[in-house]
């Protein structure tokens, strides 16, 4: 929801919002990476601070002082520096973020069992079962904010609502360091003032379509016949947007997030137009993806290739296999085939990604054998590689084409694959 700020509705002073039935909390750390950095550099408090950099400079996080100048996450660093020349730029310290995140998640889990983490710094909580112990949702939200500030020294914002999607909008509206309760009775009113882009599932393309139809606010969507929406946006999107526009979101808070896909992607240190480098990267990503699947005991049927070009346009292509696989060679051959099918002529590529979807437990899979298949095939080779990696570290055995070339600089795109 960071793409657009959600305006904060005016909550009448002194009025205690009715939080009956609002058991879903969305808790989101404020400028997480930047806030953690400020713990190391307290003297920078109150100044614009940007976390990011590295060779491929993008902003990973920025304090609200920097955001006021227009800086936001994922922005190229050069642009961020121009917008906010006085900002202090700090390199990221991912271990610190992981440590603070673990502390925050521990606070969540001591509050309720129903925690659905979305990333390092945000999660949904269903506090229905904690009310007797800790008080109403609003009280629990205050408690969470206090504990996180005390124990971790950072601030967060909390949205309290009856559904996940409204809770998430509420936390965005409460930012920074705020709390917003959207009472059940005022959900529709709250939603209807928002721009269409605030709705879950409205990306740039959908937004364009909606604006072309003259639909600017959520209220506009809500008052458009669902048939019209379905015609314009497709069966699923049309229906779901209409449901969301009336605050209907049946998705429960899932304590364990189900793995829907396994994948890896790599942004090249410099844009790449050499197909050999891209091929090698696809091999490395396929290896990593299939290795993760085997480690998790999963197999998948759909292989997805993602290619982002220097101008940020992004293509994804997918192919569904006759049956699920977790074999590196199959994932690679499929992804490679998808890349070849794009027929690119020295296009400048910024990022490639390989992903496998349609996951099922590998052990539950019957396998249609292939004619001429060797009894000891690639699957067995993969298993041997996995055992060696488990013992000697990742990358101990790998395709020769993934060995770092002699005298490779750190800037080579596959050098990052070398075992540390």
């Amino acid at each position, binding site marked *: 929801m960071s793409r657009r700020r959600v305006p904060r509705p005016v909550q009448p002073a002194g009025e205690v919002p009715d939080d009956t039935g609002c058991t879903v909390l969305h808790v989101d750390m404020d400028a997480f990476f930047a806030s953690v950095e400020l713990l190391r550099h307290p003297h920078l408090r109150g100044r614009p601070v940007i976390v990011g950099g590295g060779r491929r400079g993008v902003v990973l996080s920025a304090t609200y002082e920097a955001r006021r100048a227009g800086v936001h996450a994922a922005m190229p660093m050069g642009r961020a520096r121009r917008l906010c020349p006085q900002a202090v730029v700090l390199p990221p310290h991912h271990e610190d973020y992981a440590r603070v995140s673990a502390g925050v998640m521990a606070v969540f889990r001591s509050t309720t069992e129903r925690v659905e983490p979305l990333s390092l710094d945000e999660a949904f909580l269903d506090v229905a079962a904690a009310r007797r112990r800790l008080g109403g949702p609003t009280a629990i939200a205050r408690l969470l904010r206090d504990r996180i500030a005390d124990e971790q020294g950072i601030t967060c914002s909390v949205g309290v609502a009856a559904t996940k999607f409204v809770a998430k909008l509420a936390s965005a509206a409460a930012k920074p360091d705020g709390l917003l309760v959207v009472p059940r009775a005022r959900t529709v009113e709250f939603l209807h003032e928002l721009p269409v882009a605030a709705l879950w599932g409205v990306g740039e393309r959908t937004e364009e379509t909606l604006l072309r139809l003259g639909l600017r606010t959520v209220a506009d969507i809500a008052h458009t016949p669902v048939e019209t929406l379905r015609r314009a946006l497709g069966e699923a999107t049309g229906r779901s947007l209409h449901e969301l526009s009336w605050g209907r979101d049946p998705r429960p808070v899932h304590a364990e997030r189900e793995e829907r896909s396994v994948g890896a992607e790599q942004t090249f240190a410099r844009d790449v137009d050499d197909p050999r480098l891209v091929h090698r990267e696809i091999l490395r990503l396929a290896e990593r993806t299939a290795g993760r699947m085997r480690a998790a005991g999963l197999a998948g049927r759909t292989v997805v290739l993602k290619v982002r070009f220097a101008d940020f346009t992004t293509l994804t292509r997918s192919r569904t296999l006759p049956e699920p696989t977790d074999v590196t060679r199959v994932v690679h051959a499929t992804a490679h085939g998808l890349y070849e099918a794009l027929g690119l002529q020295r296009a400048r590529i910024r990022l490639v990604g390989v992903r496998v979807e349609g996951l099922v437990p590998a052990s539950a899979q*019957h396998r249609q054998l292939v004619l001429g298949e060797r009894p000891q095939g690639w699957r067995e080779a993969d298993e041997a590689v996995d055992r060696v990696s488990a013992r000697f570290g990742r990358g101990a055995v790998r395709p020769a084409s993934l060995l770092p070339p002699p005298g490779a600089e750190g800037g080579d795109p596959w050098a990052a694959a070398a075992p540390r």
Partner: protein
Amino acid sequence: MKLQVERDVLAEAVAWAARALPSRPPVPVLAGVLLEADAQGTVTLSSFDYEVSARVEVPARVDEPGRALVSGRLLADISRSLPARPVELVTEGTKVTLSCGASRFNLLTMPVEEYPSLPAMPSGSGTLPGDTFTEAVAQVTIAASRDETLPILTGVRMEIEGNRLTLMATDRYRLAMRELEWQPDAPETSAIALVRARTLSEVARSMGATGSITMALGQGGADLIGFEAGGRHATSLLVDGEYPKVRALFPAESPIHAVVERAPLMEAVKRVALVAERNTPVRLRFEDGVLALEAGQGEDAQASESLDATLTGESISIAFNPQFLLDGLGALSTTYARLSFTQATRPAVLTGQREAEGDDDESYRYLLMPVRLAT
């Protein structure tokens, strides 16, 4: 051009020619069917999509010889719907007027001179009986792959050694191979060709009714195959590429084989497969005198059934994709089916057998890879 032709003759000829019409023509003229009428009273209809060509000659009363190119799709739809009356076709300027009884159609013509010339039939031909060819093609095309990303496997491999013609197709899970005799013009003919399975089945289906089919394969590096029967001609480009060496996949020997009545086995497989979810197999257990079939597992639905079977060799349990098994059994025409095995993870061979006791007919063999059950 001015001619008169019987309605049924026209409709059948147009239907044949329309086969090769591309659904998305790369150039507009290829959406057309070329009509050519000659003074001898023959009308030729042709279509071509650069890969497959179809041509048919029918008798007609030709008043004025000539040529015209009209939309094939439209001509096919119209001729199919006409009343059973003689049809008259006349070119008038840039239009062809088609009249039949009280109906009249004006069809815009396309420039004939832009139409590509159809490939000539290759030399080096021979003949084979239509019904046998149709049967053989149907028996092997079931095993051809429909996956367009592996073009080679969407083809049927034809091998000719003298009067022996072998057809093969595989999608990597099963392999169908049929051997038949044909009469080559030159007794020492030797050739190989890979023909798209879809094209081959269409040709075989529409030419099979005629007694004898002429098949023409260029010698050496030719890239075209041609068929001719009863005034109908078809050519097709061959699929390019090296076909895998599949003959070696048949096991050298099979220590175990079972003979089962074919129709009851197919019925039983269809029944138990009703509970087999997508990608789950039917399990077959052969023991002395009995074949037990099972499908489904765990908490979901399950089914089982047993049949009489004559088993030679040790008992064996093996699992197959039910559709693959049914395809193979359905390709046989004999009363009994023989299933030959080496072990549960090795391919099984299906052959037909006329009598419960006796030898199997090896002119058609269907090699089927089993499914390995989850542990």
